[in-house]
């Protein structure tokens, strides 16, 4: 240990191993303790179906007769239990799930929000419109029954990502058949 090169190299390798050990321990602790569950509630206020078209990028949706769902819902969620020392952000989504004859599993995100700290973790919103196009793969809603639920995804500062969902299997709604007279 009598020259600079040896001292630098020994210090450097020790620092790196110590750093990675600490990060590993942090990740392991969070993985074991998890992030808890949140209480969420969502209910549907209004559902309409209109016909519209998207721009040229949306190749399949260029037809004027593609059916889009216009949804309004309420959401109450208390996501504070998900925030611990290792939580970097929580990504909340409201998801519509349904089954059709041709497709056995369909999941569509209608609304999402990024929550970065505990203070903004309580959500109480009314008459929220869907952020993203509610359109089926077949571009038609035929009295389709769907259910609406809240999902969350926790991103840690260091470690394993964890997700969960609220229990809202009872929140079902039906897409009305498109009436040719209405719509914008």
């Amino acid at each position, binding site marked *: 240990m009598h020259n600079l090169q040896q001292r630098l190299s020994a210090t450097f390798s020790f620092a790196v191993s110590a750093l990675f050990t600490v*990060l590993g321990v942090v*990740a392991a602790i969070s993985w074991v303790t998890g992030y808890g569950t949140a209480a969420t509630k969502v209910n549907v206020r209004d559902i309409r179906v209109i016909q519209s078209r998207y721009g040229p*990028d*949306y*190749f*399949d949706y260029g037809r004027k007769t593609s059916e889009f769902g216009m949804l309004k819902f309420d959401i109450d969620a208390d996501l504070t239990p998900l925030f611990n020392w290792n939580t*970097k*952000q929580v*990504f909340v*989504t409201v*998801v519509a799930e349904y089954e059709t*004859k*041709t*497709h*056995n*599993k*369909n*999941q*569509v*995100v209608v609304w*999402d929000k*990024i929550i*970065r700290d505990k203070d903004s973790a309580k959500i109480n919103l009314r008459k929220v419109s869907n952020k*993203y196009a509610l359109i*089926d*793969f077949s571009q038609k809603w035929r009295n389709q029954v769907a259910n609406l639920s809240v*999902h969350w*995804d926790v*991103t*840690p*500062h*260091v*470690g*394993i*990502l964890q*997700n969960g969902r609220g229990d809202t299997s009872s929140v079902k709604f039906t897409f009305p058949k498109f009436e040719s007279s209405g719509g914008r």
Partner: protein
Amino acid sequence: MFEELRRLNKRQVALQVLNILMVLTSALMIWKGLALATNSESPIVVVLSGSMEPAFHRGDLLLLANPASQPVQVGDICVFQIPHRDIPIVHRVIKLHDEAKTGKQFLLTKGDNNNVDDRGLYNARQMWINKEHVVGRVRGFMPYVGMVTILMNDYPQLKYVMLGVLGLFVLIHRE
């Protein structure tokens, strides 16, 4: 520095070369072992863009997994590679449609920090991506560690310098 090397006989030189090979191959085999364990071709990736902020920033490191037993769900953050595009994209799945008859999956993705979905990034006329395009799902996260890779991409000479220094170091020192 090199005098010791000159004094070695053939077997000892072979041993020094083997030492370098062992450093390289053990890293390679550990990487491949991890790829097998996670069922993902590239189990560790570096975030290259800011399209997933504030969750992921440029230079963060992601651990991927692609277990066949757990299908992709909406809300999962996936790394996918579109044919004819070199760079894999790390974005969240916002739409998912499973076709019952064929088992084919139709996915639409979007970056958290982007206003529009990824159809602009897919190939022309491509509306969806499928299971085959997904390299893996993001399971683990470590901040900043990947900055080294980004620096090496931006300044490719740095890559050669670092490899050269490492190789020299292993070659010259015995045990």
